[in-house]
């Protein structure tokens, strides 16, 4: 409840600042529409916004889940295999040197204009933070705990499931929170490059027709998605790491 009230308070401050800037600069509505104009735009176009939002939300969610699965799988491979660490880690870091904007058109070319190119973009954008956070967590375990488990006769599998992964959860949840903030960006970049549906597409559509209020409506809904996803991830993270209060954001 307290978190919800904090968000309401922040939202009110944001709206007031927005209003103030618009009032002081006296910007025309095709440059910076006032909050109430955007509010009316959301009310008038809610069916259109809902239609596009559902597509984007689905892309974000599926991309997010796939990113988590691939990222965790890679983290495990890196920790259990020395050769994987040697060859794969530099490759993973190298892929991050390629701007995500450069990959988007190629993905559209390869996978098409459908939702999959956007899902892959979302997956790609969160893959790195998840992988590195999880790998870091798996690595940080006290070696004496590993030795203790070995002396107890733990197999590689039970060591991973019962010792390494639980120890890595606080680190993983940091990566998940970061990923929750980045995931919507991946979907929208994908939609900007080539799409006929989604909030990214709607932003471009509205921009081309100087419907700046509709563009702002899309941005606000996207921000709402990001906040929703972040809080959902934070809630789940706090639950699975309830034994480690240090990893919780107050």
């Amino acid at each position, binding site marked *: 409840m307290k978190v919800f009230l904090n968000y309401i308070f922040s939202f009110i401050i944001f709206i007031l600042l927005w209003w103030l800037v618009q009032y002081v600069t006296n910007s025309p509505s095709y440059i910076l529409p006032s909050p109430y104009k955007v509010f009316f735009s959301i009310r008038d176009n809610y069916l259109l916004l809902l239609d596009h939002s559902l597509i984007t939300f689905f892309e974000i969610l599926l991309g997010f889940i796939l990113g988590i699965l691939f990222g965790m799988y890679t983290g495990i491979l890196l920790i259990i295999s020395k050769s994987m660490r040697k060859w794969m880690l530099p490759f993973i870091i190298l892929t991050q040197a390629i701007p995500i904007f450069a990959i988007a058109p190629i993905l559209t070319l390869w996978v098409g204009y459908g939702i999959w190119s956007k899902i892959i973009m979302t997956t790609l954008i969160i893959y790195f933070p998840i992988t590195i956070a999880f790998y870091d967590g798996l690595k940080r375990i*006290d070696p*004496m*705990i590993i*030795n*203790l*488990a*070995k*002396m*107890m*006769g*733990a*197999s590689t599998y*039970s*060591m991973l499931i*019962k*010792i390494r992964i*639980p*120890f890595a*959860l606080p680190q993983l949840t940091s990566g998940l929170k970061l990923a929750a903030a980045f995931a919507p960006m991946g979907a929208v970049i994908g939609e900007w490059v080539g799409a006929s549906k989604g909030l990214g597409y709607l932003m471009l559509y509205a921009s081309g027709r100087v419907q700046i209020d509709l563009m702002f409506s899309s941005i606000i809904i996207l921000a709402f998605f990001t906040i929703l996803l972040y809080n959902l991830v934070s809630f789940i993270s706090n639950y699975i*790491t309830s*034994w*480690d*209060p240090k990893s919780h954001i107050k």
Partner: protein
Amino acid sequence: MKRTNLSFILKGSLKIENENENEILFSNLKLNINYNKWTSIIGQSGSGKSTLLKIIAGIEIPKVFENTITCHPKNYSFSWMAQNDLLLPWASVIENVTLGQRLRKEKLDINKAHNLLEKVGLNNAAKKLPSTLSGGMRQRVALARTIMEDKDIILMDEPFSALDSITRSAIQKLTWKLLKDKTVIMVTHDPLEALLLSNNLYYISREKLKPINLPISKPLREINDENLLYSHKHILNKLEKSYNS
């Protein structure tokens, strides 16, 4: 448990690499371990006590060996109790005590675990998380976990050094009471602790393990035992000489 005494022999030298040159940590070691007795090893910080314990357990095989260990007690199983309790923070006390069985996917012997917790005075804390316990309580959970494993040899790496003096004394007595009939190898930097609890005592000096005569009384010795105090003084002198040389 094989009812025989055993010897741990390390032929050759174990070197550690430091900033300036390779320093020999110890060479040609022989450690006689008596069945169902406490053997303690003392030495100053950095003398290689913990490393030696890890080598005995087979969990650390140093890379820089001139020769190899020729007589490793391979057929023995070990359990480990360290300065750090090594409890899993997400697991309850009872889950920590039964950790070995859970890792080996064996049937859990919950009754035995509860009995052990009762012996260490923590039966009421079975469902608590380690973070809610004091340092002394956590070390008692580690003790219960160690006994639960029921291995041939119990290796203890300065198990009481992180505790305050009152708690330390209580846990030393409890540990000795519960492990007096077990084969224990303990390393410690505290000669008094070693004198109180050991049947055999060695100290690491100039790359060698040297035996130290213990007072005639049996462990758990009284702290005001005159012989013990004399031995304590004697060991401190030896350690001081070793340190100065």
